[in-house]
């Protein structure tokens, strides 16, 4: 990936801050240069620590970290965010739940998946991910009855879902 999106020193004005964030977005999503985008965002944070667009900057930083595979850092940032009442909050709850599950923080992961599922927000694909993730986390947390219930619900709602065969196998193994 090219890393050409560097930001020249500039006075810390609001319009400059907006321009820098715009560069970061283009670098991350249009040029697929996550490392370059992260550099730009770091510079933005140094120049505009109290920017009214700080929340947007955090979202972009997390996206860049995930694109770079720096999942522990991404999780640390997500842990510091309130995901309630954020746009596409259900999706972010699912992602954070998955990262927490990866870190074996089963109870925290369950809480995130609960949030994504309780209000039935997000698209069907994200709901499917949340239900499967919660089944996994519940099983790992030792709550086998709840995990089994999630797996049964999963198979009922997504009989041809991406985890259907594995869910069926786990249920059969649990019998």
């Amino acid at each position, binding site marked *: 990936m090219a890393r050409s999106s560097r930001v020249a020193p500039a006075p810390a004005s*609001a*319009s400059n801050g*907006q321009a820098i*964030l*715009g560069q970061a*977005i*283009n670098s991350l*999503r249009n040029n697929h240069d*996550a490392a370059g985008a992260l550099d730009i965002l770091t510079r933005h944070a140094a120049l505009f620590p109290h920017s*009214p*667009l700080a929340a*947007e900057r955090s*979202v972009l930083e*997390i*996206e860049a970290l*995930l694109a770079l595979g720096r*999942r522990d850092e*991404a999780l640390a940032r*997500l842990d510091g965010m309130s995901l309630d*009442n*954020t*746009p*596409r*909050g*259900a*999706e*972010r709850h*699912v*992602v954070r739940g*998955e*990262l927490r*599950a*990866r870190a*074996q923080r089963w109870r925290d992961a369950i809480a995130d998946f609960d949030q994504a599922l309780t209000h039935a*927000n*997000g*698209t069907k694909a994200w709901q499917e*991910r949340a239900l499967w*993730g919660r089944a*996994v*986390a519940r*099983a*790992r947390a*030792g709550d*086998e009855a709840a*995990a*089994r219930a999630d797996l049964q619900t999963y198979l009922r709602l997504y*009989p041809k879902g*991406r*985890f*259907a*065969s*594995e869910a*069926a*196998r*786990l*249920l*059969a*193994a*649990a019998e």
Partner: protein
Amino acid sequence: MKSASFVVVASALWLAAPALAAPLVTSDSDCPSAADVTTRLAGLWSGNSSASAMAHIRVEVGQMTVDLVSESEPAVSRTLPTEADCESRAQAAALVIAAWLDSRPSGPLGEVEPAAAPPFELATVRAPTPIASPLPSPPPPPLPSRFFLGVGGLASLDSRGGGAILSTEAAWLRLVGRVGLGVGLSFPLPREMAVGQGKARWWRPVVALALRIPLAEGTWIVEGGIGPALGLLVVAGSGFSQNHTDAVASWGATVGFRLARRSRGRTTWADLRGLLWPAAQNIRNDVPGSVPHLEALPRIEAQLGLGFSFALL
């Protein structure tokens, strides 16, 4: 952020906002106008988002509120202090919309995967074990391949009558995606037929390779299988003036269905199979000074049986 109150309006316009495109932007002000925000958003929007989205801008005293609606979620508002000029307001609104509503197709926050297939058995594992690392989306996560060894007994039926078969098999489930691979060895009991003045004792052990595809999965599993077969026909004559023994290999094909139930690593199954031998095979009785006597061997066999398999891996 607070939940916005323009959900009803947004819902009415929802169908007008095409998925995968920049969101529909509306504004109750000329500073910024919807057109200005849309123009700036066009330079930021990647077009990679898989979800429909809409945005509405409200300007009040000292603050600008951007209401954001994404697919299947309630509207959420983002409030910023107002900038002095309309261009900055438009750019700020565009940044807010792009940051929250546009994202890579693999997920809103990047290439993160669903909690991957858990290497656990509900009934047996209590202690936490590492979950597999998130994998790139959208390709489905690799499910663990499962290796089984099995044995079964089958009855066969063909144009020459019936017979019994002992069958063994090795199978890798989900070897490539949902498709598995099976290798089977079938040993029929020898059979006998009259040929001219004597008798021929024949048997045809078969090794078959089959792609196995799950057709239904749940408590009961239905699989389909199809693949090539290699048979070794062994014939021994008796009661002739000169008795011969011969062996010849021939290619065929197998197709079948399996109804199975898995429990704790053991699978009990019932198979219905068919075997086809494209090349004709005959047993010949040569009589000096006369026309040879031919008896054709069956080219189509049906098999029905029961068996069980054990998971090894």
